[in-house]
Every structure is written in structure tokens, then in C-alpha cells.
């Protein structure tokens, strides 16, 4: 087994890669459809909750004055964050020639696309008048009025839609050679559909030449997005003047947090997937351990950010900041703060022990904790700052109500539903890239 690529080079070869992965796309069994229906039901319940909210007004949710943003924006930031690890793995690690990325990047990139698609719903859900959301689009509206490009929310519109576009391009582009493989290994209507999707990919030298060039540039363009998208999302908060939001540390802090939660989500997706599809030779314990190690790193960055936030609040001697951070630590939501510190910093630091990062149950547990922790990190940032800002008269405790909880649950179901459908219809591991990671078949090998 190679520590470098992670891929098990003694069992994998050009032939069985195709066989293994095309097998994952065989007609599904009962279990698959059961899970699918359950997820669809939960997502549908979330959709129902949204429809109630659309019909009656945002008042059915728990968000209120002065906590104008609650679960919805928390969930939005959460899903945008989840998206980040995909791009990190697929683009950044590609540029850095990290070879172990190949077998996991397809799932990671799918996580990105589906997470952004999920996240994109939340600004609509939280809006007072979603039916006029198109006013945020950059075109001359009534009387020649455009949206306000100074608003971080318009940056968000640009950043998120660009992120979705680039991720989808990267995802679809990266999949073209694999779709050709699938086309070539199937018959009947599947052959036709995948043929259409493969866009006539053959693998000629000309195709490969421009394809690899475009791949590098897409990766190069996606790389700054890893940093910028979550920086811009963090500016939704940092550009305001509310204590606890107005801080320069937010962009790196949010980016690290995004990758932290994203990696954990990829782990949570990949571990059951490799088991169900028997992909252990592709996604090995080494891959999981490598990602676990990254979690230690991002967890430490977060720990530092948490610490420095409190330190600066104290050191600034600013009455508003001090009061807010005291409130975060000991106020109504103190449980959430301590929970998130435990989940995001203490949990992943256990991965320093080799035993932990090679134990599947431990990885799953810690990944779940990280996702819970990251949700509450955003929750604490958003809710405590709004509920405890400048004028003490306005201090208020926010409690979510059933539509928010339902839509949150629905968003998870929606995300996993998309992934489940994806996993059955498309190769979850990039075949051509795994092949690329294998040594090229040489003359000696074939004669041996």
C-alpha cells in the first residue's frame, strides 16, 4: 500500500476500476429506495413548512426582532461551509499535486455542488418577499435602478452563483471521460443517455491536451474561490457594525471553519459509501486518516480563532464587545458555545492519536461532532450578536420554531437525497484519475 497515493496499487488495475465503478451504478435494491423515500419525505416536510411560511408570513418562524437572522442564515452559512472542502480537495489539492485526492475528489465535488444548491435555497427561505428575489439580479429595474453593489448580500449573490457555476463546470468537466467509460460499458438506453452526457468524449490526444489545460485553469480559478466565497459570506457579518460580527478575523476564521465542516461532511459521506459500494481499495483507511489529519489542522485554526476573539474582546476594553463575549460564554447560549468548542477543537484534536484516525467509528463520531459544532458556531455568532447588541433594551433570546427546525431537517434530507441520486447515476470515484494515479502499463508488466 502506498502512503503517497493511498490507492491500493496491488489490487487495482485499469480493468477492474471500470468494472468496480460501473457496478456501483447497477439498478438499486430495496434498501436504496427505502432510504430514498424516507429522505424525500423529510425533504417534503421541510418543503411543506416553507409553504406554510410563504402562505402565512415569516412570522411562523421563530426569528424575530432584533434577531432578524436565525436558523435560516445559520443553515445557509453551514451549507456554504460544507461546500468548501469539495473545492479544496478537487482544486487546491490538485494544484498542489496531492495524489491521494483522486479517489475522493468526485464525492467531495458532488458535496460541493449539492451543498451550494442547498445553501442557495436559504436566502430565499429567509426573505420577507421571496417572490421579488429577482431584484437582486444585476439588471436595470424600475426606473433604471440596479441592485446595490455595496451590499454584502449582493456580493453573496455574485459569489454564491459564481461558486455554483464554477463548481458545476469543474464537476461536469471532470466527469466527461468517466461518462465515456460508462457509456462504453453499458447498453441500451443507458448507453444512449451516458453517450449524450459524455458529449462524444473519446480520449484522443487532442481532447486530452485541451482538457488537461482547461482542468488546470479551472482548478486555478476555483482555488481563490475557496478563500473568497466564504470570506464574502463572512463579510455579511464582518461588514456590519454589530459587536461580535464586526471583526477582521472573520474571513480566515470562516474559511477554516468551512473546510473543517466540509471535510467532516465528506468523511461522513465517503465512509458509508465505500462500504456499500465496496470501494475500500479505492478509498482506503489512509485517505480517511489523511483527511482526519486535516481536521486537526483546521480545528486548531478554529481554536486559535475562538481564543483570539475572546482575547480581543477583553483586550479592546470595548464595552460592547466585552459584554457580548461575556454573554456568549455565560449567557443564555453558553451551552452552545461550550458545545461548539468541544466539538470543533477538542474532538478533532483526538486525531493526533494514530489509533483514533484509523478507527472508522471514531472518525464517524468526531465528524458528526464537527458538523454539530460548526452549525452551532454559526448559530452562536449570528444569534448572540443580534440578540445582545448595542442597546440593552433590545436584548432578546431567540428560540427557533417548528418551521425552522423542519426546514433545517429538510435541507439535510434534500442534500443527502441529491447525493444518493448522484451516487446511483454517476461514478462516485473518478475512474480516469485513479487510473492516472496507477503506474502506466508498461511492456514488462504485460509480459509478466
Amino acid at each position: 500500500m502506498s502512503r503517497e497515493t493511498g490507492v491500493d496499487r496491488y489490487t487495482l488495475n485499469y480493468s477492474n476500476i471500470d468494472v468496480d465503478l460501473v457496478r456501483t451504478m447497477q439498478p438499486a435494491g430495496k434498501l436504496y429506495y427505502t432510504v430514498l423515500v424516507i429522505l424525500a419525505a423529510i425533504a417534503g416536510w421541510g418543503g411543506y413548512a416553507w409553504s406554510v411560511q410563504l402562505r402565512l408570513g415569516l412570522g411562523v418562524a421563530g426569528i424575530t426582532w432584533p434577531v432578524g437572522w436565525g436558523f435560516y442564515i445559520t443553515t445557509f452559512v453551514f451549507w456554504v461551509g460544507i461546500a468548501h472542502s469539495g473545492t479544496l480537495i478537487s482544486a487546491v489539492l490538485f494544484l498542489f499535486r496531492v495524489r491521494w485526492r483522486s479517489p475522493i475528489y468526485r464525492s467531495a465535488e458532488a458535496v460541493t455542488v449539492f451543498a451550494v444548491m442547498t445553501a442557495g435555497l436559504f436566502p430565499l427561505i429567509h426573505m420577507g418577499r421571496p417572490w421579488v428575489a429577482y431584484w437582486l439580479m444585476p439588471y436595470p429595474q424600475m426606473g433604471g435602478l440596479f441592485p446595490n453593489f455595496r451590499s454584502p448580500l449582493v456580493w453573496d449573490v455574485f459569489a454564491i452563483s459564481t461558486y455554483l457555476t464554477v463548481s458545476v463546470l469543474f464537476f461536469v468537466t471532470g466527469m466527461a471521460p468517466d461518462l465515456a467509460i460508462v457509456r462504453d460499458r453499458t447498453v441500451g438506453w443507458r448507453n444512449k443517455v451516458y453517450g449524450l452526457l459524455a458529449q462524444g468524449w473519446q480520449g484522443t490526444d487532442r481532447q486530452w491536451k485541451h482538457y488537461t489545460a482547461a482542468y488546470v485553469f479551472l482548478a486555478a480559478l476555483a482555488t481563490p474561490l475557496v478563500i473568497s466565497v466564504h470570506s464574502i459570506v463572512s463579510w455579511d457579518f464582518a461588514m456590519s457594525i454589530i459587536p461580535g460580527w464586526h471583526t477582521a478575523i472573520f474571513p480566515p476564521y470562516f474559511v477554516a471553519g468551512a473546510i473543517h465542516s466540509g471535510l467532516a461532511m465528506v468523511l461522513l459521506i465517503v465512509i458509508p459509501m465505500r462500504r456499500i459500494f465496496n470501494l475500500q481499495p479505492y478509498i482506503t483507511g489512509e485517505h480517511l486518516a489523511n483527511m482526519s489529519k486535516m481536521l486537526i489542522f483546521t480545528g486548531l485554526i478554529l481554536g486559535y480563532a475562538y481564543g483570539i476573539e475572546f482575547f480581543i474582546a477583553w483586550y479592546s476594553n470595548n464595552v460592547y464587545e466585552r459584554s457580548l463575549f461575556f454573554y456568549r460564554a455565560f449567557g443564555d447560549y453558553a451551552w452552545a458555545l461550550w458545545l461548539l468548542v468541544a466539538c470543533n477543537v477538542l474532538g478533532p484534536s483526538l486525531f493526533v492519536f494514530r489509533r483514533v484516525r484509523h478507527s472508522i467509528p471514531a472518525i464517524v463520531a468526531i465528524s458528526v461532532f464537527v458538523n454539530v459544532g460548526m452549525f452551532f458556531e454559526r448559530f452562536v455568532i449570528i444569534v448572540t450578536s443580534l440578540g445582545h447588541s448595542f442597546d440593552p433594551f433590545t436584548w432578546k433570546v431567540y428560540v427557533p420554531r417548528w418551521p425552522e427546525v423542519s426546514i433545517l431537517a429538510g435541507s439535510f434530507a434534500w442534500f443527502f437525497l441529491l447525493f444518493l441520486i448522484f451516487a446511483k447515476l454517476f461514478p462516485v470515484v473518478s475512474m480516469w484519475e485513479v487510473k492516472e494515479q496507477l503506474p502506466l502499463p508498461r511492456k514488462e508488466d504485460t509480459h509478466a
Partner: protein
Amino acid sequence: MSETNRRDFVKILGIGSAAGLAGCTRTAPDTLTPYVVPPEEMVRGHALWYRATCRECPAGCGIEARVREGRVHKVEGNPEHPVNGGGLCSRGQAAVQGLYNPDRLRTPLVRGAGGALQPASWQEALDAASALLAKARGRKDAIGFMTGASAGALDDLAADCLKAWNSARRIRYEPVAYDSVRAANALCFDRPGLPVLRFAEARAIYVFGADPLETYVSPAGYTRGITEARRAGARMVFFGSRLSLTGARADEWVAGEPGRLAMALVRELTAGDARFAAIRKWAEPFTPERAGLKPEVAQKLVREIRANAFLAVAGGVAASDLADAIAVNLLNHVAGAINKTVRFDRASSLDTVSSVFDASGLDALLVVDANPFYTAPPKAAAGGPKIVALSSYPTETTAAADIVLPIHTPLESWGDYEPWAGIHSLQQPAMLPVFETRDAGDVLLKLSGASGEYRDYIRARWKKFASADFESFWKDALKRGGHWEDAPAREVRLTGADLSAQLKPLLENASGYMLQTYASLAHFDGRGANRPWLQEMPDPLTQVVWDSWAEVNPDDARKLGVKTGDRVRLRTPQGQLQLAAYVYPGILPGTVAVPLGQGHTNFGRYANGVGVNAAALVAQAPDPAAGGVRWSGGRVEIERVDANGGLVVISGHDLQESRGIARSRLTGAGAPAAAEKREEPELSIYPEHEHKPYRWAMAIDLDACTGCGACIAACYAENNVPVVGKEEAARGREMSWIRLERFFGPGETVSAPFQVDLTLMLCQQCDGAPCEPVCPVFAAYHTQEGLNGQIYNRCVGTRYCSNNCPYKTRRFNWFQAEWAAPLDWQLNPDVTARTRGVMEKCTFCVQRIVEAKDRARREARPLADGDIAPACAQSCPAAAIVFGNVNDPASRIARLQANDRRYRALEELNTRPAVSYLERERRI
């Protein structure tokens, strides 16, 4: 002006104006209805103003009703009226919600054979009433005629009626009747009436448990007087066991039993003064120690009384003992205030009222616009009088009545009222009746068998005031709002009767808890409870909405194991109630205070079942000493029931936490020198933008602001601010554009001397507004005139602006606002009714700015300072809010901005608000 025309046009009016913002149906057909004959003085789209008299309490303030297209939209104070001079309290503002109250009686009701009230035609009901009266007339004094305070034509008419009905049983019932004050004045000065209090002339104003800034006799007028005095340097001291809102505005709170404190001051003032030897003898036992007055405080107060024009005021609901009022009379006497600041030149309309009534031996009781059975429920005994109730609303009294006749509200009726002798205040209908109701006067004329209309009756009565041509006098009086006569000075002298016996109760010490009730600022004695605005406006001190509560001292609360919001049981010999507790540091241990006015059972959807009726704890029988209901001073037992008080407190936190939002400073001898004002340069990395030709700004004088909330009600009325109800208010979703923020102090803890800081928080119209750049669609933007614009129809509802507002003055429409018909008739046609999902906030009443500019343009003149008054500024009885153009250096606002008390809220954020505050002074 021709009244007939005005009456006719509304009949033919059909242009509705209220619809949501969502209207995309500009092409949909709709009906336009012109006038058949246009009313002369009316131009569609222009407001007309009709002057009248406010009848929401006995004060009798002058009002003017703004009418657009035949509908009253708003009520404002009449600037020419001698009682209030332009300001109007929140209850007066809410009169329109009485007019358009969805629960108003729409048809007469007659008790049927089954014992239930059934709708009847006017003819049937009037016939039934006439028959009833005809039967009862047979026996002398078998018919009672009950009204509230009613000096004026109605009084005359009542007398005529009773004469026709062979009776002399005239009852003027007011639950809050100041019996003790009147009894004390009778004993001390042989004048059984209320004094005329000239606050404006006093420089030391001592308030003994009374609430002249809230409900006491004539609050809007007194507020004006006290403000005037304060601007001239007056100091105000509050004596009492519970710090009321009036007390909160005082410079000093001397906690204790008011009568005892007054007597202690009398004792110190009369020491060695031969003129007051008798009084000194009565006062001898009242040593300062006994009253709980520190000797040095006593000495300081005595010095102050001697050096200044003095005025002490007693009584009200919260201190309703005769002894208290006598003590204050003696203090006024020895301080030389009688015949100077405390005068008896004019009789009050309240001089003839009583807080108890006797209906025994009556066969029929006619109740006109009063609700005695809310405070004093009818005895269940059979054989009581048959009751004919004339009322605009269902009330506890109409529920017990046999015949109910729906009458006009004051804004639809003719009438006059004489709150003080010689002040004849006129009432005229500002619009045609909303429902099939009748003018009470017309009904009474009919029942008494007289002919003619009530308007003519009033005109006939007014003939005696006219010096020359009556028609022009009448026209003039309608235009002015009434007719005011000068009152000759009338001096009174102390009778010299021995009052020591009456003062004796002040020496008694009782054990256990003392019950103090007080008239609610919003609902007074209960008559405002069906106005949703008044329910939703938080009580200034407790910040509670839609409820009643029992205030307990923190030490008592600890002993009882009670927290704010817990349910407690109050028990007196008269009854028991369960209500939420409110732990209030401004109440002395051993005292429990409950506001009056809630707990209605038959007063419409906004009042029924809200809170509890504190009158049930108080004996509705004459107190032997004062002759009226003893609202406060009785014993009460209190115990905790459970944690489910269901109290909704709007305020999120009681302390300012060093944020300097509501600031005050100590002034006067011995005050620390004011800190050197740091002039922070207004820094910006960007060049300033121009403000032309105007730059609007507002200044709020916290030294004048009393916290009465008139501005809030005015804002509700002017700006179509919806009411959300208790449940949504509990979630923080009340929509008021102005908040009265109340903080306890001083400093970071609640410690002695306890103080209350109040400030108004409304959109600060920042120059560097944090809300504006974050809006993705320019719904929030800045005008060239310095306004922080909010365009509702552009808003997409991200709520980012509200998040980023340091003052949190923006309100979001969580649901589609609803106004139960016909409350929607009140909506101001000049302001968009917001749809759900959009943000709204104070606009500095931009519609008034536009209107004033328009008017100036039509009249081809420049805008003058004072042309524009936003609704809040206009309504303020204390004139604490000033609005104007700071580009004009001569404007009042520009001058106030140079005042050294000026500060801006959260100034250090560099938001550069257009709203300035003037620090409150605490004079020592």
C-alpha cells in the same frame, strides 16, 4: 360653513383608500364615485380640520380632528385650547380607535322574554325605554340619571329629563373622583372642589402620591405647566411609597407614606412660627424620623420650600386617604402656596362627581356613557332598577342593562363640556356616524318628550355666552373649539377647624402588605382598554403590554419566592385575584401596587379577558373619612401560585450597562461639575455629501419628556402602524416606530437612590447610516435632505438593515397587518399600508414634510421653522420634541443642537444621527 352640507357629503362618498401594497392590478376596473353636490370646503386629497373636545377622560382637552374624504384619520391637540394648548395624551390620540372600534354597538338591544339582550330597531328600543320611564315616572325619585363628569349642555339636559321624569336622582359617577382631595379642601378651606394648580408658576413642585403627569385631573395641561416650570428652573420632588411615572420624572424621590412626609415638612416649617401655632401642634408627633425622612433631607426641603414659589399636590388613586390630602393642604398653607399656585378660581367639572353611587330605591336607571358596573358590579339582588344604557360600546353596564341604546362617539356628536368653570369647550361631529347610532343628546331629548335636535339645544344654551351676533359668535366658537371666559380671582382661607382627629390615621402603623392601586396611564379607569393601541403601548415603567400586574419590592419578592412573571394571588376582604408579579425596585417593601383598568368582561375583543380588574380588591363603598372609594391603603395578602403569569415585558434588560443611552446629569448647588464635553470631530475617510436645501433633524429634550407615550400613540395613528397582539408582542414583534426605553439606575446596579431613566428611541436618521449600504436593493437609502429613506415597495425583506441598526428601530412585517373593520377607516391615506415581508421604520413623517413643502410652494413662500411637526412632536404635551431644518441657523433645532446638554445616542459609532437628545437634569 354649512353643517348640512358636511353631513350630506359623506353619505355619497365612496372612495375607499385602504388596500395592501401588493396591488399589481393597476389595470383592473374599480369604481370612482364623485359627489352629487360637492361640499363647499372640501377638496379631495386635502385634509380638513374640525375642532372639538376630547372626552376620553374628564380633563376636557381641546382637540382637532383631521378629516380626509369625510373620514377622521387622526386627532391632535387644539393649540388654542386653554386646557392642553396643543398637546394630547395617548388616550386622546386613541379616540379614533373608539370611533372605529370594531366592537361598537351597532343596533339597540332590548332584553327579551328569555332574559337575553336581543337586537331591536330604534323605534322598538325607544318605545320600550319610553314605556319603562313612563311607568317609573309615577313614583317620585324613582328614575336615576347617571353620567360621568358632565358639566355643560348634557348636565342641563339631564336636569330637564329628570324634571320631566319627576325625579331628582342625578348621579355623576367617576371611579376616579378625587374624593379625598375635595373632602380635604372642604374641611380646610370650605371649598369642596378641586384646586386650580398653577404648576407653571411654581419653582418647587412637591408631589405626594399624585400623578399629574399621567392621569390626575388634567394630565396634558399639567404636563405643559410642569414643563414650563422646569424650563424656568423648577425642581420636582416625589413623595410616596411607589415611584410612579410622575415620580420617575421628579428630581428626587422621598420614599415613604406621603401624608406623614407632608406632615413632617409641615412640622419643620412651622417650628417656632407663631402664625401656625395650631398647625404646629397637630404636626408635633410627625417628627422627620417617624416619617422616615432624614433630618438633613428635611432641612434641605424646608430651605427649598421657603426660598421658592411652592406647590404641593396630593391625592389621586395611589394616595386616596383624606389624611394625606389634609396634610398636603396644610403644607401648601404653611408654605404660602394657597391662593398663589394653588387656587380656587374655577370650579372643576369633577367637583360634583362621586366614586360611589347609590341606586337603591330606583325603578329605572338611565346610564349615559358611563360604565359603573365595571368598577362596582351590580349586586345580584333581584328587584334592582331597570337599566337603560346609552353607550357606544358593549360594556359591563350594557351587559346588565335592560335596554341598550347605541350612541355616537364624541367625534360624531354634538356637545359641549366645561372642564373648569368658564371654559366652554365645544364638540362637533367631525364626520357622519360610522354606524346606525344616534347622538345621546337627541335620544335624551326624545325620551324626555322634548322636541328638536340636540345641536339646537346646545346653540340655545350658548346664546347666553354671545355678546353680539350669535351666528358669527357660534361660527367663531366652532372654529376656535369653544369659548373661554376669564375667571375672577377668588381667595380662600383656612377654616381653622381642628383637623388633628383627621390626621390621626397617619400615625398608625399597620402590618402586612398595603395595597396600592393606581390609574393606568393607558386605560385610566378602564375606559381605554378597548383601544388596541393603548393595549399594545408598553406601560412606561414596567414595559408590560396587554396585561395587568402586581408590583412587589425585590426584598418582598425574595421573601415570597416570587420572580417577575410568576403568578401570585392577591386577597383582600373584598375579593381575590390571580395575576402576574412584577418585581419593581421602585416600590417600598410592604407595598403591593396594581394598575386599574383591565380585566374587562364585556368591552370588546381587545379588552375582554386581558389582565384583571383591580377594582375587585377594593371596597366599592364610601370610605368614612373621604366619602369616596378608598382605592389605596387597604391591607392585602399575597402569595405565589406558580410560574405561569404569562407576562409580556417588552424591555430586554433593565440596566444601561454604561452605554449612555438615556443620560442625565446632576445640576444645582453641590452637583459635580459637568465633565468637559469632548467634541469628537466627525471623521470620515469619504468627503461629506451635500444636504440641500434642507437638512432635517430632531431634538428630544429628555428633561421635558415625561414618558407619557403620547408620541407613540400619535405615531401609530399617523403612520398606519399595525397592532400585533400579546402573543406576537411576546415574540418581540410589536411594530411601534417609537420605543419608550426605560432603564433602572443609577449606574450599573439598582441601588439607592433608585432612579428611572427614560428615553425615546426612534429611527435616528443617521447621516452615516449602517442600515443603508447593507440593503441589497436600495430600499434603504439617504435623501439629500438628510432623511434615511425606506421604500416599502422596494424592500425584499432580508432584514439586514435591522440587524445592522445599532438602535434596532426598524420593524419587520412578519405577517400581513390586519385592521378589523372598520378600524381600517382610520388609516392615513398619505402613508402606504405596508404589506407583509417588508421593513418599516420612522420616516420623520415624510408625508408631512412633503405636504408642508407643497403648501409652501402653492403659497409661494419659503418653508418657515415650525411649519413641519412630525406626529410625535405635534402631540407631545411637554413639547419635548423639536423638529426642523439645521441648515437654517436661526431654527429652533439648530439652536438646540448647540445646547451643552445635547448628546447623540451611541455617538462613538460615528453613525452621526440626525436625532439629538438633551440630557435630563436631576436638580439637587
